Structures are given as structure tokens and as C-alpha cells.
């Protein structure tokens, strides 16, 4: 029994070392306290709503979010805008629908069931408008980067003057946290670039945190449900394991042998 537990913990250790090592080189990212980490981690609603504002007023000019729908904005576990607010947000975007009875495409205000409108029609158009670099879709961006939320949070604040001797082509910027330190996106945030509806001062740090929180939710919309269910599942398993353990002891006590 003891050997078993010991072995399990050693294996867990080995597994985590492996998963650590398979990620690219470690960089010291900027740290902040994310409310959604940990056993009971939940999103900060205010931060999610502000994060949506940053996304839609800053990022959405170039970055699509094609797997999200406007209805998601009012769903539980997300920014939890009211249904009316979400409808109003949707209605402020135009989508192409059709063909109508005459066989023609037409535009109409977006509905809750529509996917987020994309800034460019396709990847090529996005590349053409951004000097050849495709601004990645942001739906699962957090999960698609080794450093996760810490990486995105740091990157947004990682713009600096290039060190002496580094030659940057036109349209390329230096970023401390970018892989290879060269990034085509110019610094997207600056203090006060937007005005938060709830009056929070829009510092670069605050906006980075909010938009990263929003991106985390976008990539993992069921995170809160997962944490809730996980806690229940593990408590349940521990109870059942205990019961089975004592049942096993009882059963094996019938014979002269130990388990």
C-alpha cells in the first residue's frame, strides 16, 4: 500500500517534469494573481466585461474570434452581460446573410446566434492588410501559447526599445516576451486608450489583465463549471475510495492474509 502511494507520487512528479520540459524554454513572465486558477477558481465578472471592451475596441480591429457567438456573452460562467445587453452588442454589428428570395446576399444586424463578426473576410485579406503577418484568431489563443495567460499578459506589456545592435525591419517591433523578440504587432495598448464603462482607470497593466482574463474565458468558456464539477467528483471519489477500502479490509479479514 505504501509502496503504491509512493510510486504514484513519483510518477506524478515525473509526469509533471516531462510536461514542463516539453514546453519551450522557460521565460520569466510577469505575474499577476488570476482569480480563475486553483480548485475553486472563478472569473472576475467585472474584469471579463472590461476585457470584452478592450477586445472589441482595440484587438477586434485586426484579430478575429470566430468560434465565439454573441450569445456566449450572456451565458453563465462568462462576462454574464444581460440578454438585453448582449442583444444590443450583437445588433451593433452587421452580418451578411442570404441569399434572399431574389438570390441576393444582404446585410442585417447580428443576432445572438451569430458568430463574432470577423475584421477581415479571410486569412489572405488579413495578411494583406497587416504587412504579411496574419493576426491570429483569438478564440483559443491562450491555450495555443506555451506560456498561457502569463505569456499574453506579459507580451502586452513587453514592448521596449530594442537593445543596441538589434536591427529591426520596418513594421517590426521589439518585445521582450515574444518568441525571437520580434513582433509585427505594434504596441496595442497605451494608458487611457479606452475609457472603461465602470470607471476603472485604464492603465496598460489593467487592460492587459482584463483582456487576458477575457481571452482565458474565450478559450475555456466552461472553466467554472469544470472546477465546480471537479471538486464534487474528487470529494465523491475520496468518499467511495474510503468505503471500498474498509469493505476490502473486511472481506480480506476472512482469510489469513493481508492486503
Amino acid at each position, binding site marked *: 500500500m505504501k509502496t503504491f502511494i509512493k510510486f504514484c507520487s513519483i510518477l506524478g512528479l515525473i509526469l509533471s517534469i516531462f510536461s514542463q520540459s*516539453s514546453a519551450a524554454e522557460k521565460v520569466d513572465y510577469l505575474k499577476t494573481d488570476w482569480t480563475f486558477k486553483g480548485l475553486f477558481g472563478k472569473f472576475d465578472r467585472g474584469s471579463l466585461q472590461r476585457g470584452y471592451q478592450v477586445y472589441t475596441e482595440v484587438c477586434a480591429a485586426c484579430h478575429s474570434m470566430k468560434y465565439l457567438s454573441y450569445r456566449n456573452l450572456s451565458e453563465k460562467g462568462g462576462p454574464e452581460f444581460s440578454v438585453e445587453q448582449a442583444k444590443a452588442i450583437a445588433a451593433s454589428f452587421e452580418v451578411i446573410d442570404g441569399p434572399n428570395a431574389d438570390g441576393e446576399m444582404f446585410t442585417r444586424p447580428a443576432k445572438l446566434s451569430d458568430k463574432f463578426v470577423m475584421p477581415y473576410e479571410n486569412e489572405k485579406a488579413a495578411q494583406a492588410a497587416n504587412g504579411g503577418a496574419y493576426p491570429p484568431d483569438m478564440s483559443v489563443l491562450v491555450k495555443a501559447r506555451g506560456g498561457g495567460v502569463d505569456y499574453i499578459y506579459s507580451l502586452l506589456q513587453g514592448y521596449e526599445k530594442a537593445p543596441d545592435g538589434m536591427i529591426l525591419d520596418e513594421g517590426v517591433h521589439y518585445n521582450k516576451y515574444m518568441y525571437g523578440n520580434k513582433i509585427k504587432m505594434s504596441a496595442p495598448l497605451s494608458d487611457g486608450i479606452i475609457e472603461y464603462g465602470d470607471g476603472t482607470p485604464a492603465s496598460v497593466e489593467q487592460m492587459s489583465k482584463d483582456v487576458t482574463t477575457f481571452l482565458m474565458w474565450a478559450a475555456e468558456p466552461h472553466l467554472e463549471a469544470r472546477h465546480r*464539477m471537479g471538486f464534487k467528483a474528487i470529494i465523491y471519489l475520496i468518499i467511495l475510495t474510503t468505503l471500498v477500502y474498509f469493505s476490502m479490509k473486511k472481506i480480506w479479514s476472512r482469510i489469513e*492474509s493481508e492486503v
Partner: protein
Amino acid sequence: MSEHEYKPKSKVGQWFNDRLPLLTLANHLTDYPTPKNLNYWWTFGGILTFCLITQIITGLTLAMHYIAHADMAFESVEHIMRDVNYGWLIRYIHANGASMFFLAVYIHIFRSLFYGSYKSPREIIWILGIIIYLLMMAAAFMGYVLPWGQMSFWGATVITNLFSAIPLVGEGIVTWLWGGYSVDNPTLTRFFTLHYLIPFLILGLVVLHIWALHVPGNNNPVGIDIKKPSKDTVPFHPYIVIKDGFALLMFMIVFAFFVFYSPNILGHADNYIEANPMVTPAHIVPEWYLLPFYAILRSVPDKLLGVVAMLSAILILAVLPWLDTSKIRSAVFRPLYRQFYWILVADVLILGYVGAMPAEGLYLLIARVATAYYFLHFLVILPVLGFKEKTIPIPLSITEPVLGGNPNLAMAKQKESKIE
């Protein structure tokens, strides 16, 4: 199947059993005499059955929502994660389930290596097990391709290109595997078909594996042949059932932590980027459970020989019962083998580690040494050890120390290893 005839109590039961002896089978399974000294390493057979069934059930449900098309696969996975009721749960169980399956199978294999369970008369069980393991790797590899992320695409490209190492026909085989001139939609649809098929082949082989096991019966930590049924055995139900159940629950707690609290830690971030045939990710790394073989592949500088080395590393296991010349099964009574066994474990872990690292400099050197040692273990150390090793005397029965007077040296050793 049974030496002593089983007679159902009820008339209907008898009538049915005469025509289809399912009740005899059930009786055989519940009464199956199992050595009573099996330790927790023996519970992984049951855990693996659980893993297989979990993968099949979650896989079937995912297949109801997944779309095997290059343009839609990635999106359909996101649809499962976002919109399908409990879709995120089912997918995370399936994805992490693959890792848990391999974790359990490696423990199962190394248990067999330690206690010599592959030796006569259990060679067929062992070989069936190796075939299952090979099929598992194929299923896992093809399953990893289905989400059609960057790692899916480039993993598929790299692995299928292994076949191009075959002289003369290699290129033709690769084109045939792809159904085109690169990994593309035809490749994805056939991988999906095979990924769906293989688990059922595994299930069939598992039945044979268990059938073959029930002919000689379980090996045990002492590694001696025992009389069945006897004082040395307990009926499978309830003794082993409850013990397997307990171990399974412990396993499920670990499983649940992965699924609910770090569902993506065993995966790779690049697989959340949709497949792009124009850009290769900076580091292509297979899933952790394939890393040791990946390290062996990369440690050989020649393309064909690298592939041969990797395949041999797996296939060498199939002939292991004949490479190991020792008559003694359990490592408990083989002091030298026991040391070499742990060196092998370390060797495989090292191979796994360097497999995740870039193939250059010191890592490459370590990989080469570790690869050489891997083959040395099976091809030289094991055969020689069987003749040279001075083994500890084995006891006559499992219950000997309880029944007999003075426990001998072997018994003391056995006790010691149990405490460890």
C-alpha cells in the same frame, strides 16, 4: 474451460446453460483461483480494462459530433468544447484518458518485467500484450491527428514519412498512406476510420489476452507455480474484485485531477492552432508516451536505420521470453537482475526525457548511450544473466512462511521487498 462441471440451480438456468454456457463462464470468472499474494502492481490489468472501456464510450460519443474533414475538424472540436452538452468533459476525459491508458500500460509492462510474467508458460499472453501495445500506439497516434491542429498535422507528416525510409517502395507507400501528395483530407478521413476500428480490435485481443491468462493462471510476486485452487489462492470474487476496485478508484482520483484541473498539461499548445501546411511548429514533439521511441529514432544518424532501431526496440519485446534464459521468474530471487531491471527503468525514463529535448549536443549523446544500453539489456545482459546469476532459493509455496517453521532466507528477502 472448466474441469469440474458447473450446474446452474434453476431449471431455466440449466436449459439456457446447456445451449450457451454463459453461466459456466460467469462461474469460472467469479471462482477463478487467484494467488492471494498479488500486490497492487497486479491491479493494473483491471485498471487497463477500465481505460479501454472509457476510451471506447467517450470516443463513440465524441464521434457523434466530430466531423472528419480537413476544413471542419478543428471547428467541430471547438464546437464540442463550447456547445455540445458536457462536450468539454467528454473530450477532456478522452484526451487525458489516452495518457492514463499509457501510464497504466507501462506500469503493467514493467510489472511483468520485474516478476518475469512473460516466461513459460505465459509467452502467448505476453505476445498478445505486445500486439495490444502496438495497436494502442497506432490508435493514439491517429487519434492525435483528428483535432487537426498544428501538432496533429506535423505529427502525421513526420510519422508517415518514416515509411519513406523503406528502400524502393517507400515513397509509393507514403503516397498511398496519404491518399495524395501530402497529409490532407483523405489522410484525415482514413485515420478517423482506423482510429474508430482499432479500439475494437484491441477489445478482441484483450479477450484473448485474458483467456490465455486463465489457462495457466496468474503469475505472482514469488513467481512460483502454485496449485489451484489451494491455500495459496483466493476466488477472484470478491477478494480480487474489491481490491482491483480500490486500486481503480485511487487511479481515478489522479485521472480526475488531470481532467478537471489541468486538462491541457499533457497536451501541446501548438495543437490549438489549426493545421497549416505552410508553417512547421518550432518543436515537434510526440505525446509523452511515445518519447522514448522517438529518442531512439533520432539517436541514429541514418534515416532507414533510425526507423529500424525504433521498430526493433518495440519488437524485441515480443521475443523477450526467449532472450531471458533464467528459469527463475520473480526478480525477488534474482539479485543481479533486480539491479539491471532498475537500470533499464532509468534508461527508459532518460530516453523519454531526451526525446522531449532538441536532438543536439549533449542530449543527442545521452540518447545514443541510452539507446545502446536499451538493446544491450535485452540482447546481451538478459541472456548472459540467466547462466551466470546466482539466484536465491525459492520457496515451495506462497503460504510456506505461515505454515512452515523457520522462514528461510528467500522468505526474508521477499518480506523485505514487500516492505520497500
